[in-house]
């Protein structure tokens, strides 16, 4: 339609059309937001549902949407259309290599930063002030990095869409919680046990379902995840039901120092430091950092072994794999089991960190978040997944800090409640913007002359 437009016209945005677009979109937005935002249901003193009039707010929001659409139509779309041809052309090898170098540089600086992060934070905010930054951000993000890397084996490498990954996280967490409480075993004994149990569950659940294709596999794994959660809720003798399990023992520093305040070998007491939970948090930080790096290290090694190559080949073309004599069921199962094992490790760490587990922590939304991290990061890319975890978990965590917005939006404004809303919007936005995620290029696992980055456009996403 616009092909006949003269070049000189391209520079001048078509304001008339943009205005029309904006107005139409604003009207549609008001039709939807009018009832949903403008008419808020609330209960009155008699516990009857009444409507509160917020139509003004709905009108403002609709106007914002309309103006946004106007700006998009007037300025952004013409520019994208003008650039369209250039950006559509596949990236050249030189560009890919340059990007790969940036990624490598980022990994190394990122790694150094991760190791000095707690020291940096303590020197900036003091011992007590560091807790929030080390625990809420550092440990929290690293748990998701580890989960992302674990699931990356299943989704990113083997191309199997697993929407029930949180089940293995739960297996790990409950394994540690129950075995530590009932048998008084230490974290260091139970960490491998939890991993093995999770892997075992991975095999049990994986075996019947792995021949299913794509979306069906996704839905079955989702169902498994939900079944495990529902069983945890209902089987009260075993798991304590919805109330969960509390007073789960803390991790000890290899049995030498304890972080229990009452213990004689309490870390702070032994070193004559002021009692603070900060030391435990820093210890946990390094523990999860090492666990995550272990995941990364093993994944990188596996990728260069036949099994890893078979996973990627499976993602590319399962039928071809079978024609080459590869037992695809076993190959998928190993991916599932190893992914589950890392989920189990992360789960036992989670239980030890929280000191409390309940089915609430293992809802489907958790799986969705981890899948989102893997896909947004760019399937198969370790650094991409780490970046996505930082952006999605760290980013939404930052919302808790935005208390100053209360000045703008009034006292009742609680930015925290917008966390998941923004998370969901980001998921949609990033998918539309970059359907292949942040880092889609692939590094070959072997080379004859020179390792050349493979463009993400050629890499397949797997059949499920």
């Amino acid at each position: 339609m616009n092909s006949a437009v003269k070049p000189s016209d391209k520079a001048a945005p078509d304001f008339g059309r943009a205005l029309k677009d904006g107005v139409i979109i604003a009207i549609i937005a008001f039709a939807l937001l009018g009832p949903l935002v403008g008419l808020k249901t609330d209960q009155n003193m008699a516990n009857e549902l009444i409507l509160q009039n917020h139509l003004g707010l709905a009108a403002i929001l609709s106007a914002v949407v309309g103006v946004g659409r106007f700006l998009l139509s007037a300025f952004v779309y013409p520019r994208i259309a003008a650039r369209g041809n250039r950006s559509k052309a596949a990236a050249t090898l030189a560009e890919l290599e340059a990007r790969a170098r940036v990624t490598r540089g980022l990994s190394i600086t990122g790694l150094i930063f991760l190791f000095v992060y707690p020291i940096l934070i303590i020197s900036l905010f003091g011992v007590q002030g560091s807790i929030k930054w080390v625990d809420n951000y550092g440990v929290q993000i690293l748990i998701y990095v580890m989960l992302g890397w674990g699931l990356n084996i299943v989704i990113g490498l083997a191309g199997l869409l697993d929407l029930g990954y949180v089940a293995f996280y739960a297996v790990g967490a409950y394994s540690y919680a129950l075995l530590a409480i009932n048998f008084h075993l230490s974290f260091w004994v139970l960490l491998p046990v939890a991993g093995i149990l999770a892997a075992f569950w991975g095999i049990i659940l994986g075996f019947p379902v792995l021949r299913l294709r794509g979306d069906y596999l996704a839905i079955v794994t989702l169902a498994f995840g939900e079944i495990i959660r529902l069983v945890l809720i209902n089987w009260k003798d075993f798991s304590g039901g919805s109330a969960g399990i509390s007073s789960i023992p803390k991790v000890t520093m290899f049995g030498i120092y304890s972080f229990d305040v009452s213990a004689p070998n309490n870390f702070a007491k032994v070193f004559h430091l002021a009692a603070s939970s900060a030391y435990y948090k820093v210890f946990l930080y390094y523990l999860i950092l090492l666990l995550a790096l272990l995941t990364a290290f093993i994944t990188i090694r596996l990728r260069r072994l036949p099994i890893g190559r078979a996973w990627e080949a499976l993602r590319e073309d399962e039928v071809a794999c079978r024609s080459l004599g590869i037992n695809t069921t076993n190959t998928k199962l190993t991916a599932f089991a190893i992914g589950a094992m890392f989920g189990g490790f992360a789960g036992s760490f989670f239980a030890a960190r929280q000191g409390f587990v309940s089915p609430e922590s293992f809802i489907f939304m958790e799986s969705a978040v981890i899948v989102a991290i893997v896909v947004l990061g760019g399937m198969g890319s370790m650094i991409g997944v780490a970046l996505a975890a930082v952006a999605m978990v760290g980013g939404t965590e930052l919302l808790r800090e935005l208390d100053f917005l209360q000045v703008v939006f009034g006292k009742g404004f609680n930015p925290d409640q917008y966390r998941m809303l923004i998370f969901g919007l980001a998921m949609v936005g990033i998918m539309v913007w970059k359907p292949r995620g942040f880092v889609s290029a692939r590094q070959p696992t072997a080379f004859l002359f020179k390792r050349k980055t493979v463009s993400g456009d050629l890499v397949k996403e797997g059949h499920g």
Partner: protein
Amino acid sequence: MLPLGATAGGLNFMEVFVQQVINGITIGSLYGLIAIGYTMVFGIIGMVNFAHGDVFMVSAFFALIFLLLLTSWFGIASMTLALILVMVVSMVLTGLLVWAIERIAYAPLRGSFRLAPLISAIGMSIVLSNFIQVAQGPRNKPIPPVTRDVYTLWEGANGYPVNLSLKQIIIWVVTALLLAAFWYVVQKTALGRAQRACEQDRKMASLLGVNVDRTISLTFVIGAALAAVAGTLFLMYYGVVVFSDGFTPGVKAFTAAVLGGIGSLPGAVLGGLLIGLIETLWGQYVSADYQNVAAFSILVVVLIFMPQGLLGRPEVEKV
């Protein structure tokens, strides 16, 4: 754990069973209505529209808000009129909402990376439920009962009644009428033909002058409108809705679609009824606690042992 009637030691076996079948068909009708949305979208673009369950929930909120608007602000006294109006409004607005969602979150991803639309749909599902939580509050939203009329079909021993409520009759009748209308649209109209053409071969359909994009959008909208009917009836039946009500009915309706054979419209309805029946009977005779476990287990078992479902076409692997 066993409900009242059953304590009589099988005395009222027939009555309890019939009552549960009535209840099961009622819930099953709702699942069937939602399942059609899943099955149509999957049929036409091969995508599991993960946000569909939450669309259903939003439609119940549309119905809730307009019901309150009509009764408390405009003071409409006739419940029948109010219900009809509310249902129509909810259908229109939900259709509009889904049209917007499809344009924003799914259409740009068509033909790209296969996982992208699924992730986008999961994102949309998160957006919808959290948006409602933020905009309408996290609490249960109860409404006064629309009608309390109950007809006792017969009474068993000790006066145990088999009841059929007016609400249930409304659900059955509305579902049947809408399914008939929907069936007509799909089988007899140009839109239905375009839809089936796109299902078979999108590229060919587009070469033959079918507006594929519009057909896909309309498919989403029709699915949403049926979900809105289910949403309105759900609100009327249970008298309460909450922002998190999308997920479980969504998964169960998807189970229904898969059980019936995904892509098959009669299959979706049949699957819905079966899931409804299995769920209520399971709750009655096995364990109420594990009712949802049963639904999920059916999903797993069906997908593993007969992925083509009851009325679906078996798939031959292309080599």
